[in-house]
């Protein structure tokens, strides 16, 4: 029982980062109706910039800002080159273009920092907190906090601001939004930047809590983010959060009961089974 609860705690805290990644993917998917395969690599780009800066500066806040700025820069680059030109055209072109830039961003990052592993300043220097027989890392709590704060801020923006109305309008029906006088291109760009900022922050939190950064960060973030987005039902923001948390839980429990090799297998199996069964909440209408 104790193991179950501990695993659940671990799963939720890992799931918080997946949820954030899922939210980023879903925001971009919502306004653009496309999956951005460069999302993870942009996060990696930001994290690598921060790592490179960490050789000279140690302030965590500064490094976080650099990670966010780097990711937003990469994100805007991707949006302008891969998504804006294909807004009315075939979706495959945008996604393949974003894959091409994935390769570009990864290579740039590895040119900047060629080794397989780099240390990153710790998010928190102390040990985990104990609650009776359970322990929770402070870093994980910080990530959970960041996830909750992002959700609240996001909700506030979407439902209480003029910009939020424009975003929801574009997500609902881009053509109707255009006719209402909303500049869909400008809104999409800003949402893309916001999603990149969230991604950059998430990336920073992840590498700081693991105290290391590797070239796998790009692919890893992309996979986890897309899985979270799809598990929660494509296109739904609350779904992405639920999907991310669920993914964390599934991984934690699968790993405990079945071993590390099955951890990923079960997650993929669940996604495949959900897609095959197509429950209504999965929103399996044509994605573009």
């Amino acid at each position, binding site marked *: 029982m104790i193991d179950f609860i501990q695993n659940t705690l671990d799963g939720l805290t890992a799931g918080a980062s997946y949820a954030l990644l899922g939210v980023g993917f879903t925001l971009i998917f919502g306004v653009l109706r496309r999956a951005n395969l460069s999302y993870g690599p942009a996060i990696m780009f930001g994290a690598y910039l921060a790592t490179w800066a960490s050789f000279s500066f140690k302030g965590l806040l500064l490094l976080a800002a650099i990670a966010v700025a780097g990711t937003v820069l990469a994100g805007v680059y991707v949006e302008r080159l891969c998504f804006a030109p294909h807004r009315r055209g075939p979706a495959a072109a945008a996604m393949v273009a974003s894959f091409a830039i994935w390769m570009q961003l990864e290579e740039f990052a590895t040119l900047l920092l060629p080794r397989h592993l780099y240390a990153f300043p710790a998010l928190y220097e102390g040990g985990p907190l104990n609650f009776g027989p359970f322990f929770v890392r402070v870093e994980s709590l910080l990530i959970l906090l960041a996830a909750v704060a992002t959700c609240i801020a996001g909700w506030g923006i979407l439902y209480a601001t*003029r910009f939020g*109305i*424009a975003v*929801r*309008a574009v997500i*609902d*029906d881009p*053509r*109707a*939004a*255009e*006719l*209402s*006088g*909303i*500049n*869909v*291109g400008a809104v999409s760009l800003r949402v893309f930047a916001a999603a990149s900022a969230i991604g950059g922050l998430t990336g920073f939190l992840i590498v700081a809590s693991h105290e290391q950064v590797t070239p796998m960060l790009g692919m890893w973030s992309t996979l986890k983010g897309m899985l979270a987005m799809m598990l929660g039902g494509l296109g739904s923001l609350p779904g992405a959060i639920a999907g991310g948390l669920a993914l964390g839980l599934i991984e934690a429990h699968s790993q405990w009961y079945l071993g590390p090799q099955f951890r990923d297998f079960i997650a993929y199996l669940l996604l495949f089974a959900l897609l095959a069964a197509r429950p209504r909440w999965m929103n399996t209408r044509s994605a573009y």
Partner: protein
Amino acid sequence: MLRVHDLVTAYGKIEALKGVSLEVAQGSITCLLGPNGAGKTTLMMTIAGVLKPKSGSIRFSESEISALPAHAIVSRGIALVPENRLVFPTMTVLENLHAGAYQRRNGFAEDIERLFVRFPRLKERSEQLAGTLSGGEQQMLAVARALMSRPKLLLMDEPSLGLAPLIVEEIFAIIAELHRDGTTIFLVEQNAHMALKVAHRFYLMEQGRVTFSGDPGSLAEDEVIRRAYLGSSKN
């Protein structure tokens, strides 16, 4: 007010508009009739800036607008009520109106009040999700939303489509009211009978071209209807 000259719009190689020319006089109600596939919606979408014309010109109040994107057209004072309404289904009625007023930023509370007077049923349902409204209510919402941008020219694409006869009469009463209040209206309609009752001028479009223009008296009504291939439309 609106002058379209030799407009050509194509989908790839296929020309939907083959050189359309027409005029909408300020303060009038102008109606565009024609069979399905004639290009009426394409024309509306081109004027609204959603589609880009291949050639030709669209002049609104003496300035050329054919190259402007849709949101810029709205800021010039033209609003389109599209075919199929296109309301925002997951947003409430009130939020839909807010979206329509996007360019106006603030100070449109008065407009909403006035619209609720004009469309009392929308006021009742102001917190309801637009996707759950009936067809007639959605049509009213679409019109109200377009009006939120205080357009000088209101474009309407088939406002009576799929609506019950009583609702259609309500819609046309609203059109007449809007005209009285000074809005210029350019209207595409299948329902020739109702449209000719309110229009000052009408155009007939077939296969991408304007084939006739005149005022409602200049051609016998059933001649018009026949020419528009509409069959019997005594509503």
